[in-house]
């Protein structure tokens, strides 16, 4: 998953990004002002935008409106210092999906981030079940037929993304775009490596192949 964090308070942005990378395995892009944020949001496919309201150059509310005007479905989680009813209502009406008030708890931020990404992909439960495969997005564990499977961080990220879009064809480019931050292009040939690793671990002792390769189109996770 790939997240955009628009926050001018560099230290806060860094802390949140570190936490998202370490605890959720997300790729995080950072923008320090509204204009940069808008540029990044328009030029990349993000699974979530974390947005501060008080921003230089373009304030968060305006950025939020522009993102929604361009018809993007990306979930937006707003971080604000104001928690009065009026501003919360204005936020949600402008197209925000959720909000957190400063100072917030990183654990809560992580949980809300995961929930928003899940819902953005039409996946209501934190435990994704596809056939006999069970993927727990809370503690990042994978089971198949009751047997725990140990994955590397990158393998998990690939599987998590595929699991959030079951029975859909996911291109290599899409995978790359959602698993790495802005310099993803240089990783283009590693996806095959992760996919083959995943296949091996998931199919250990099982008969049915879960990840299908559609030549020239991409990958599909199905039971």
């Amino acid at each position, binding site marked *: 998953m790939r997240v955009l964090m628009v926050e*001018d*308070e560099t*230290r*806060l942005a860094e802390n949140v990004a570190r*936490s998202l990378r370490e605890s959720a395995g997300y790729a995080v892009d950072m923008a320090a002002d509204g204009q940069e944020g808008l540029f990044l949001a328009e030029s990349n496919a993000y699974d979530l935008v974390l947005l501060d309201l*008080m*921003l230089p150059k373009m304030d968060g509310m305006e950025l939020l409106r522009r993102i929604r005007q361009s018809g993007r479905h990306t979930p937006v989680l707003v971080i604000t210092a104001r928690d009065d009813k009026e501003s919360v209502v204005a936020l949600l009406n402008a197209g925000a999906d959720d909000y957190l008030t*400063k100072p*917030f708890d990183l*654990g809560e931020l992580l949980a809300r981030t995961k929930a928003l990404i899940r819902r953005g992909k039409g996946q209501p439960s934190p435990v994704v079940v596809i056939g006999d495969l069970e993927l727990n997005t809370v503690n990042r564990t994978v089971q198949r037929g009751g047997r725990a499977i140990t994955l590397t961080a990158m393998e998990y990220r690939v599987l998590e993304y595929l699991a959030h879009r079951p029975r859909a064809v996911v291109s290599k480019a899409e995978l790359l775009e959602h698993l790495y931050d802005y310099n993803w292009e240089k990783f283009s040939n590693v996806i095959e490596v992760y996919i083959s690793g995943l296949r091996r671990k998931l199919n250990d002792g099982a008969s049915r192949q879960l990840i299908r390769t559609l030549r020239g189109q991409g990958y599909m996770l199905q039971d």
Partner: protein
Amino acid sequence: MRRDSIQRRLIATVVLSQAILTVGLMVTGVLVTYWRLLATLDAAMQAHAMSVAVLVRYTEDSTGNVYFDNSLLPESIDPNHPDQFTVWADRTGLLARSEDWPDGLPLRPGPNQHWNFTWAGVPYHALRISHVPILDREEDKAYGPQTLTIVYASPTFRTGQQVKAAGAFIALVSLLLLGATAWLASWGIRRGLLPLQALAQQAAGVSAQSWQLQPPKEAEEIEELRPLTEAMTQMLGRLERSFVQQREFLGNAAHELKTPVAVLKSTLQSLLQRPRSSEEYRAGLQASMQDLDRLEQLLQWMLRLARAEQRAQDARRELELLDLNSTCEEAVERIRSLAQSHNISIHLAIDGPVPFRADPDDLQLVWTNLLENAVRYSPEGAPVEVAVAHDDQSTRVIFQDYGTGISAGDLPHIFERFYRGDPSRTRATGGSGLGLAIAKALVEAYGGSITAESAPGEGTRMTVEFPAMKPVANLP
């Protein structure tokens, strides 16, 4: 402690004054009645004395002697108590006296005397008339006329009874009136104080949520209550303003503190999320220290502002006589290193000393805040100019920079606490959003004013104006 009551006091005052009036009226009434009865008695006694005088006749023997003819004695004035009298002729001597005339009764000297005496348990009023001519006129005789002296005394039982009856009547009427007055007063006063109760009820409804005091109509119509309602309305207005200000400040302060707290919290939480190397811990702790420094600075600014605003209300603070120009010079010296780091030169235009009475720390804070502001928003190499101008009316200190300027939309708000036109601006330049608010509070504490003129891109001019001090001979 017994609670006093205006109502009781007013009723007591009315009743007491009524009682004093009543007693006065009673005494006057009794005295007047007594005097009038006595005058009537006197007149009656005089008439009776004359009736006694006409009973004195000259003897037929041409000796000029007189005798008393007691066959035609007048009736007593009080039929139940006999009158007493005695008659002398100046030559013949004692002519007659009533049967019960007391022996040795002192007869007062002098003409037309009245007096009272008690004899044998009977109170008498006595009248003495001298030089009464004898009406039986046969004085063409050679011996010449005689005159009479008559003492007539009448018991005053009846007068006393009449006075007592009159007194009792007056007392009865007065007491009835007194009762009626007390009742009327208590009713009237209770009714008169009703608007006060209505006002109190209205005032009881005032709270931090609803500051409006709508004085009830009946209270507004009453002249004596007007100063009270006006004072209350004004007081509530002042209280509301200061309460709202405090609440706003609290809200703003909390809002401002949230971001540095969020940074600190996120730093520590991400540090704790998993086991780290000691280098990572060290880096995290150092970052936390920086966050804390920022928090501390913000708190210091807030405290400074609170103190500045408090000073404005502290009438007893100690002021010293100082030279305004030298405080400006000191402030410029303090800022110079900051200015030099931005390659900004500060020009100070001052002449002779300007006497001023103030706390030097306050002025320092004002000047340094304004200077810091000017330096912050100046581009590299631009000058900042400070000038002090004074005349009989006022002293003006002007800070001119040639920096980014302030937009027309922000200009009216820059002295508000935590106001930031562009949120990035203060973060980039390190301000707290409180410097100008502090300067304003301090300047106003000395009866001065602070104004800003600005054109975006051309610079900003801040003018601090104090009313001129009364002439002072010597400056320290």
